[in-house]
């Protein structure tokens, strides 16, 4: 399907693939890190847990829910002033990274909280009986024991970001989504359309395979 495309188009596709990867990688890393922090905070502050702060927990929960309920395409436009402030522009890859990250953080936070919920409360009790501090419980027990679930969460996040990045492409972010819209859709070039979709499918497959492999390696069950 890449046959018969002009050299310029192939060059464009290659560049777009790299752009997508950069957007996904940068927003992925930042949102996974911040989402992990937020997810742990949600987990430990829940009433009955070892750092129970019901008010803070409720507040964080509302923020996360609001973040998750705004459709990405609207969020992207709504935070343009914030994006400008941060990267000085509202178009291009750097500008796309900001809304991608903002949208993914609450998403990651809930996934992280969910995988931490899977850790047996008995393990936390055991750690407390050994005199563990709260940071020790988090770093030595919770996160290592939830490793498999956390890797799955990261995989899901990266794949979701590939989809979001294509959407961002439609409003000037560049990347595979932009190529697909501008050449494939608007100019009825089905070869380009199929190519962009195929590349994205391959990316998703690769991320999923790597994720599955890492989960298998992390689990001892």
């Amino acid at each position, binding site marked *: 399907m890449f046959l018969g495309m002009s050299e310029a188009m192939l060059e464009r596709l290659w560049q777009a693939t790299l752009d997508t990867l950069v957007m996904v990688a940068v927003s992925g890393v930042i949102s996974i890190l911040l989402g992990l922090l937020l997810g742990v905070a949600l987990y430990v502050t829940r009433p009955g847990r070892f750092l129970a702060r019901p008010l803070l927990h409720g507040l964080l929960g509302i923020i996360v829910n609001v973040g998750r309920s705004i459709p990405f395409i609207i969020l992207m436009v709504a935070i343009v002033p914030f994006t400008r402030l941060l990267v000085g522009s509202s178009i291009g890859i750097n500008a796309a990274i900001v809304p991608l990250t903002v949208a993914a953080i609450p998403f990651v936070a809930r996934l992280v909280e969910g995988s931490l919920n899977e850790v047996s409360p*008995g*393990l936390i009790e*055991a750690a407390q*009986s*050994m*005199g563990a*501090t709260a940071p020790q419980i988090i770093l*030595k027990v919770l996160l290592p024991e939830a490793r498999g679930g956390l890797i799955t969460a990261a995989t899901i996040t990266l794949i979701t970001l590939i989809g979001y990045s294509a959407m961002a492409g439609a409003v000037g972010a560049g990347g595979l989504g932009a190529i697909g819209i501008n050449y494939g859709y608007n100019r009825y070039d089905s070869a380009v359309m199929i190519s962009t979709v195929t590349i994205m499918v391959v990316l998703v497959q690769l991320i999923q395979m790597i994720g599955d492999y890492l989960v298998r390696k992390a689990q001892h069950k």
Partner: protein
Amino acid sequence: MITLENIVKTYGSGERAVTALDGIDLHVAAGTISGVIGLSGAGKSTLIRCVNLLERPTSGRVEVDGVELTSLDTAGLRAARHQIGMIFQHFNLLDSRTVYANVALPLELMKMDKAQIRERVLPLLELTGLASMAERHPAQLSGGQKQRVAIARALASRPKVLLCDEATSALDPHTTTSILALLKEINQKLGLTILLITHEMEVVKTICDQVSLIEGGKLVETAEVGRFFTAPASRAARAFINDYLELEIPPELLARMGESSDGRTHPVVRLTFGTESVDRPLISHLSRRFDIDISILQARVEAIQSHTLGLMIAELIGDPETTAEVIAYMQSIDLDVEVIGHVPGNE
């Protein structure tokens, strides 16, 4: 070593408050094994969690090794917990860590360096029979082996006290025996004080020095184990022991048995022998002395550590005056007699 004073624990408040522990007083002497037995929901779990303050009592004092835990701040309590090991019904091992790393965990938490940790962990794996399994993961172990890892882990910080929360309840009888033997061994070798909670009489019978019966959040009776079995003071304890011993009356006898007596019925008695009387040839002695026949319907002898407990259900065959005399005589010696019914004679 462990002293609980008037421990009260209530959940919730106002009208919906539930009292889990209702004024518990318990003392466990250093170097002994003490058991708290009771049915589920009696408050056992809450009680043992109050000892290391995993559950903070609503009121009351907890003292372990001379330190009043209830008055400590967070850091003080964490340090005190290094002196109190704990094992659990479901082991609570970290699946992500090997056997070695599980045992090392409490030492890592104490910020010990790697060489020191190694020096501590290896002998513990030896003691618990896990030396060849150091690099395995918990998922590759049997239940008994997992509990051994948990015991090694609980001992790593060299505690003075070990708390066992239904430690053998998830194990089969054979494995239970080996885990109990291990607990006894560490009690004797290391002079460790052990407090355990269980619903299994077998556990109490096998390793405890002292036992307390808990019912509805209250300790009904606390006694030395031999005494608890042979001379329970409370009705609840007697009921518990009878349930455990399952000394059943044969059904055909039960069908014939009535409440009342007349000249032609024979009394059926349940006899409980203590250590002093269990070895005596009582039946033949009674038979000769009173000229009656005694038909043994059920009998069982239980060894409870250094004590022996005998239980028997027997029919006394003789005229009413003689059987009354026999019962009076049996009561006068070290024998607990209960007339459980009367059966018609077979003339």
